[in-house]
């Protein structure tokens, strides 16, 4: 099949190229970037040296494709979606422009009026674990935010099982610097970022909207930046309607994820890696989920870890494409990660 990546010079774009260059169903691949047009791909993404001789094409040179992956900043997909849909049979947008079904939440969380609200209803929220059946017929797939993906995968089984109070859920996230993207800014300067444990969003983070949409919970979210390049750790605190045991939690999470290829339950009694942590997930498409009952506080702690560029973005987008096309869902995504790293 023919695949195109628009916004291919960013970190998510580079990760998409890395995965698609080795995907067995991709016959031709186009890398599109306004910023890096004419440059060899491997000059911007040095890990791809000797993997590809591709150069970035300018946006006006976009060719027809079977699937177009868009990795452009929020607000840039919606005005271009009609053009992309005319060019590709399926568009997988990794930005936020088609994640929310309610157009009126865009001014509140993203600061713009949605220019194509009529297209929102046809977009499917791109988490195969929640919306697999709808992906096949979706012309537009909206990839989740990285912290939202982790939080939703941790919380959705609890919400569906009805064991938590949906009005009182707290999500606390830690994330690495690559989540800020490849564009330089003062907050990302080494002197500012190195060694930081920064609460950069105490309340009102924009991923709140999609977590609420997908879980049905009212979410209080706080987000921290930490000393890492890749990785998201989402620690979710939910208060239970009635006491719940760890065995019940095992049942709830097994029912949700036992057959999922990229969700692993990590809740071990001993050893170094008893709960999920993002470090060992770098470069993978896994989301590791752990949990604990806290009867003292009437609480369940649900924790999810993933690579923000993997299951939090590019890897998940390729998984969505695999699911939509009826390919084996793990195709091109088998990398098990590194340990130690």
């Amino acid at each position, binding site marked *: 099949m023919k695949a195109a990546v628009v916004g291919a010079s960013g970190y998510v774009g580079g990760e998409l190229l890395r995965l698609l260059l080795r995907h067995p169903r991709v016959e031709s691949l186009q890398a599109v970037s306004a910023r890096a047009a004419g440059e060899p791909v491997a000059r911007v993404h040095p890990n791809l040296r000797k993997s590809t001789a591709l150069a970035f094409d300018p946006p006006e040179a976009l060719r027809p494709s079977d699937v177009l992956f868009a990795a452009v900043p929020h607000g840039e997909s919606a005005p271009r979606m009609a053009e992309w849909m005319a060019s590709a049979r399926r568009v997988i947008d990794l930005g936020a422009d088609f994640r929310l079904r309610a157009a009126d939440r865009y001014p509140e969380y993203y600061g713009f009026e949605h220019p194509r609200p009529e297209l929102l209803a046809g977009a499917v929220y791109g988490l195969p674990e929640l919306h697999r059946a709808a992906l096949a017929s979706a012309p537009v797939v909206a990839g989740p935010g990285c912290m939202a993906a982790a939080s939703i995968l941790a919380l959705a089984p609890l919400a569906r099982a009805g064991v938590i109070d949906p009005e009182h859920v707290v999500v606390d996230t830690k994330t690495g610097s690559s989540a800020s993207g490849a564009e330089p800014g003062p907050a990302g300067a080494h002197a500012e970022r190195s060694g930081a444990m920064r609460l950069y969003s105490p309340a009102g983070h924009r991923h709140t909207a999609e977590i609420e949409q997908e879980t049905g919970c009212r979410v209080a979210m706080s987000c921290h930046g930490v000393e890492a390049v890749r990785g998201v750790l989402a620690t979710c605190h939910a208060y239970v309607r009635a006491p719940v045991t760890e*065995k019940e939690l095992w049942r709830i999470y097994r029912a949700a994820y036992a057959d999922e290829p990229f969700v692993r339950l990590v809740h*071990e009694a*001993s050893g170094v890696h008893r709960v999920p942590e993002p470090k060992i997930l770098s470069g993978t498409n896994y989301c590791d989920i752990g949990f604990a009952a806290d009867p003292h506080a009437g609480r369940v702690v649900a924790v999810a870890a993933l690579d923000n560029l993997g299951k939090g973005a590019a890897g998940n987008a390729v998984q969505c494409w695999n699911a939509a096309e009826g390919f084996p869902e793990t195709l091109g995504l088998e990398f098990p990660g590194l340990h130690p790293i």
Partner: protein
Amino acid sequence: MTECPECEATIEPKPMIPGEIFSCADCGAELEVTTTEPFEVQTAPKEAEDWGE
């Protein structure tokens, strides 16, 4: 076939003898084989700080 008393994971019979200890593949709990016909396990006793005194 039996299940882990800690997390209810399915555990296939193993070529072990009563008293042997192994870890549950899902939750990592230490399990002790109690009988082999049928194959049954219990959570392995933990030694307390006073060594059982």
